[in-house]
């Protein structure tokens, strides 16, 4: 343990610490631009210089690289330090006069104007090398490096050309202190479901969930992507999250696991997914960062989100006009014909939030206002009173104007003519739809699906939570679009149905089930794929099909299909049916 004196105060340092680390740990402020705790010290920006007095000799040294040796006397704010920092900041401001970080730092040292102006005021890179070192030390992609010397020095990939070595991780854009690096997405994809575009690979998918647990997106995580790309050759890429996590909660080796549980009943509550508005080009989704979906608006407006709940445009400005377009993908013959039911009310809520948090004018393009629930109509009236402009008619097209403004065109059915409005932000109230893997879930439980893709209930009026498969129930939007109160009610009903069944302990099944005559069965497996209830399984050792009587609903599909005539439906044997037909015909 070393003891140092920083600005007259005695502080202790651990083995291997630098002066900067010790100073910051003890609350001394030292400005830095090229320092990052997870990277090797570099000593390039020289802003962190301090006066180091050692063995009676005073020198200016960069605190980020200087080892905290015993007996050092450090001055972080002595006149030579302040003077040198001011000159360096003047030089950096001259290089990058329009970079806010530099402007602010320079201002702290009393510099408002670049003292040595350069020709290109748009330069943003201060050559701190954070990106280069991140790419080399953490990402291990080694894409970025310096080229040229002196004032001509540049950062970039080899020969400043596009390279396949770049994995597009974006780590360089995140560490860059001046915003000099931009990632151009050639394939939108990995960031699609993230709130408001590119972000770190660790994110909190549900901002208000308890506990609020972040996840690592292995498709975006540098470590996993480098690992996949090099087939494990670079297994030690990045790992910064592990280094900084004080709880030691990060484990890269954790794998998805399959848990098998024996249950008596199953409630399918697989919910919905948001429809992708890029499928209809007239909404220009993806062409401007200020065209967002209702779900993205929720992330933006959330107090735990990236703007801490402020409603801002992509460039950080407050919007002055916002348009909300209803029925995007719903009630549309080119997308979903059904009404998604929830959009009208959440659109109204979002209109209310915009009015509440900003001074922006709000335009709602709606076809019909479906305020069907308790208190909903009253809320609609309140929102109208808040000054939201209601335009009855589908928002037909969004055009991105050259100045970045967005023009929303539509028909005002009440006026009977075409209208348009220029706004800063467009919120698309997108449809909800059945999850893309609903067919797999359906096959697993033997469920049928209605035309709209949602799981079909046993009877639309009489049995709204049951399915045709015994013991399997539906809850919430897996069955059809629902708002929260409806979902809760539906789920409650499903739960009581399931409990009632389990409380019985055993079930009475219909005696009309199929049986296989194993003498006749040739083991062709035709029946297995046909059974809608997955009730037939193939017994390998006996080379025959066998029906699970608890699952069989006696529909007769297998009976009719069996080429060997080996399956019979009990109580509906050929003989019995023929006898019934004869009996009926006897009346004729």
């Amino acid at each position, binding site marked *: 343990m070393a003891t140092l004196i920083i600005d007259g105060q005695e502080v202790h340092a651990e083995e291997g610490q630098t002066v900067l680390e010790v100073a910051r740990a003890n609350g001394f402020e030292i400005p830095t631009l090229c320092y990052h705790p997870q990277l090797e010290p570099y000593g390039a920006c020289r802003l962190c210089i301090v006066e180091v007095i050692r063995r009676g000799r005073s020198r200016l040294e960069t605190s980020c690289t200087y080892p905290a040796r015993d007996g050092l006397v450090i001055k972080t704010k002595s006149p030579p330090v302040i003077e040198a920092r001011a000159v360096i900041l003047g030089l950096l401001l001259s290089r990058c006069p329009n970079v806010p970080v530099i402007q602010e730092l320079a201002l702290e040292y009393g510099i408002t104007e670049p003292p040595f102006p350069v020709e290109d005021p748009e330069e943003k890179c201060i050559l701190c090398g954070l990106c280069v070192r991140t790419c080399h030390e953490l990402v291990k992609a080694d894409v970025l490096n310096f080229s040229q010397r*002196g*004032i001509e020095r540049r950062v970039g990939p080899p020969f400043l050309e596009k390279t396949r070595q770049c994995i597009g991780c974006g780590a360089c854009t995140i560490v860059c202190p001046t915003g000099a690096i931009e990632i151009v997405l050639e394939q939108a994809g990995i960031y699609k479901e993230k709130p408001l575009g590119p972000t770190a690979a660790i994110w909190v998918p549900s901002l208000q969930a308890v506990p609020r647990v972040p996840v690592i997106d292995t498709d975006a995580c540098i470590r996993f992507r480098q690992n996949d790309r090099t087939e494990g050759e670079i297994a030690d890429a990045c790992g910064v999250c592990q280094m900084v996590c004080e709880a030691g909660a990060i484990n890269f080796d954790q794998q998805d696991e399959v848990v098998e549980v024996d249950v008596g009943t199953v409630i399918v509550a697989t919910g919905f997914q948001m429809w992708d508005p890029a499928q209809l080009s007239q909404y220009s989704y993806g062409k401007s960062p200020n065209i967002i979906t209702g779900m993205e608006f929720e992330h933006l407006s959330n107090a735990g989100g990236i703007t801490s709940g402020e409603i801002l445009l992509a460039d950080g400005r407050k919007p002055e006009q916002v348009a909300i377009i209803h029925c995007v993908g719903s009630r549309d013959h080119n997308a979903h014909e059904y009404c998604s039911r929830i959009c009208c009310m959440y659109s109204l809520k979002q209109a209310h939030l915009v009015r509440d948090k900003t001074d922006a004018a709000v335009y709602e393009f709606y076809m019909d206002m479906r305020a069907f629930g308790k208190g909903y109509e009253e809320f609609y009236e309140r929102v109208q009173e808040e000054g939201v402009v209601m335009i009855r008619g589908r928002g037909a097209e969004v055009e991105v104007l050259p100045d970045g403004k967005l023009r929303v065109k539509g028909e005002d059915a009440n006026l009977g003519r075409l209208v348009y409005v220029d706004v800063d932000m467009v919120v698309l109230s997108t449809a909800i739809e059945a999850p893309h893997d609903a067919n797999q879930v359906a096959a697993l439980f033997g469920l049928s699906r209605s035309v709209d893709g949602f799981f079909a209930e046993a009877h639309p009026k009489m049995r709204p939570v049951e399915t045709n498969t015994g013991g399997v129930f539906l809850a919430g939007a897996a069955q059809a679009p629902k708002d929260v109160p409806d979902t809760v009610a539906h789920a409650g009903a499903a739960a009581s149905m399931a409990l009632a069944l389990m409380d019985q302990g055993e079930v009475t099944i219909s005696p009309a089930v199929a049986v296989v005559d194993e003498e006749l069965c040739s083991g062709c497996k035709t029946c297995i794929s046909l059974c809608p209830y997955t009730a037939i399984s193939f017994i390998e050792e006996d080379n025959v099909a066998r029906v699970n009587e608890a699952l069989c609903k006696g529909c007769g599909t297998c009976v009719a299909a069996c080429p060997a005539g080996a399956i019979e439906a009990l109580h509906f044997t050929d003989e019995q049916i023929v006898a019934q037909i004869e009996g009926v015909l006897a009346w004729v």
Partner: protein
Amino acid sequence: MAERHRADLLISCLHGRYPELIPTLQEEIERRGLTGEVGVVEAGCRGLCAMGPVMLIKPGGLFYTNVQPADVPELVEETLIKGRAVERLAYKEPVTHQSVCYYEDIPFYSKQVRHVMHDCGMIDPQSIEEYIAVGGYQALSKALTTMTPKEIIEEVKKSGLRGRGGAGFSTGWKWEATRQSAGDVRYAIANGDEGDPGAFMNRSLMEGDPHAIIEGMVIGAYAIGNVRNAYIYVRDEYPLAVSNLNIALEQAREYGLLGEDILGTGFDLDIKVVRGAGAFVCGESSALMQSVEGKVGEPRPKHYHATERGLWGQPTALNNVETWANIPLIINKGAEWFASFGTENSKGTKTFCLAGQIQNTGLIEVPMGITLREVIYDIGGGIPGGRELKAVQTGGPSGGCIPASLLDLPVDYDSLVEAGSMMGSGGMIVMDDRTCMVDIARYFLEFLKEESCGKCSPCREGIRAMLEILTRITEGQGKMADLETLETLAKTVQTASLCGLGKSAPNPVISTLRHFRDEYVAHIEDKKCPAGVCKALIEYYIIEDKCLGCGLCRRKCPQGAISGEKKEVHVIDPALCIKCGICRDVCKFDAVGVR
């Protein structure tokens, strides 16, 4: 073994000008039936660049300058057959114009003390036998067989040898620190990355006497201990140095002087030549080591000395090639002998390159403490054209300018630093009264702007800013406040930069501001360049009294800016004049003036 001849002709300083000189000589010797009697050797640098190619005939010491292929028949006939000197080819004393035929009598050489360069130009650098014949590798054998590593270090410490790369750190102490740093693997490196414009001491040494460097390194490696690999870092612009060093290394290996079990003592060492790509900053120790490691040659912070954590993080002794070449001398002749040359704190001799406005441009070796006056006037032969000395720039681009008033300054590490310059690796640029000191500062900063690696902001941006101010001043746009800004900038670049390049980059500005502030003021306040260099501030005119109307300037003027009838006074049209200075150079009557 080398053949024995009646006479050997040692040719130096060809500078690639007469590639046919040696073949012509050999043909002539064959034609005259002297084959086997007379040998022709292309030897290393003799230092007298201005008069190359030069020829030294051994034995005897006849010395010819400016030898051209056309001189060969006469030379062979007169000297080799008849035994007479060809006076026409002898060295001419620049002031008295007397011919000096013998090597020892030439003042350029007689005033020098050539220790390190002693064999340079005297032996064939590609022959280890010749090096051994003049006493080479004796020191190695002495050190390895009769001295302990500690004794060697003590001897080097006692000699007072300081680093010849410029910083002047005690070599013995450096070795001792390296030896005392814990490490199973240690390294030794010779820095031959000489990058200063106008400096070629290291190049001449590596080309002319490579074995001396190798011998010094083997001794050093043995003394430091645990050194099994050593490197000689040479810039690739020195192809002859690279090839001569490689030949020498191969020969040393063959003779058991390098490699495993050197001289049967069980000591192993191999030396490799590492070629640098020629970045000036790679002469800086940490950047050099980065470059040896195969990385971009960029300095790294040096809170740990290289003797502790150097190449690949191991203790490393990095010395200039000239420092290494001094080692065999110290071992052979002893520390007392070595210390008998030089001053209290700067011992031994040092090589310098004389360049600029001086008669005998070339390479010299003098004892430390010699005055600038002796160097410039006695050895260098003074300023051409009888002009006045204005300043001497030492220490390369990042050194400083010493004014003529300090001509009696002793040349040693500490005096030079005191005068605002530095020893550097030994460049010495002599400037006469036609040199503008503001322009000189601008020129060196221009060089440093190109050569700054660009890693740290004070050096990269600070040099640019200083250069812009200087350029402004030379263009007549300067303000008095600029001088203060220059001083502030210079101070920050000096104190806050990462490496030696940045820390010394403001030296040209600081030293010229200190010694020649009035020139800056003349540029700014009077809008005049006293030396007549800065084009924006000068005007060429014809001095009426002197112009005879010969018309030479009129014919040579590229712009047609001069008019005048024959035998009448000519006139320069300032509107057309581009201030190229050709008229002034060609006028035989000094009738073109600058104001």
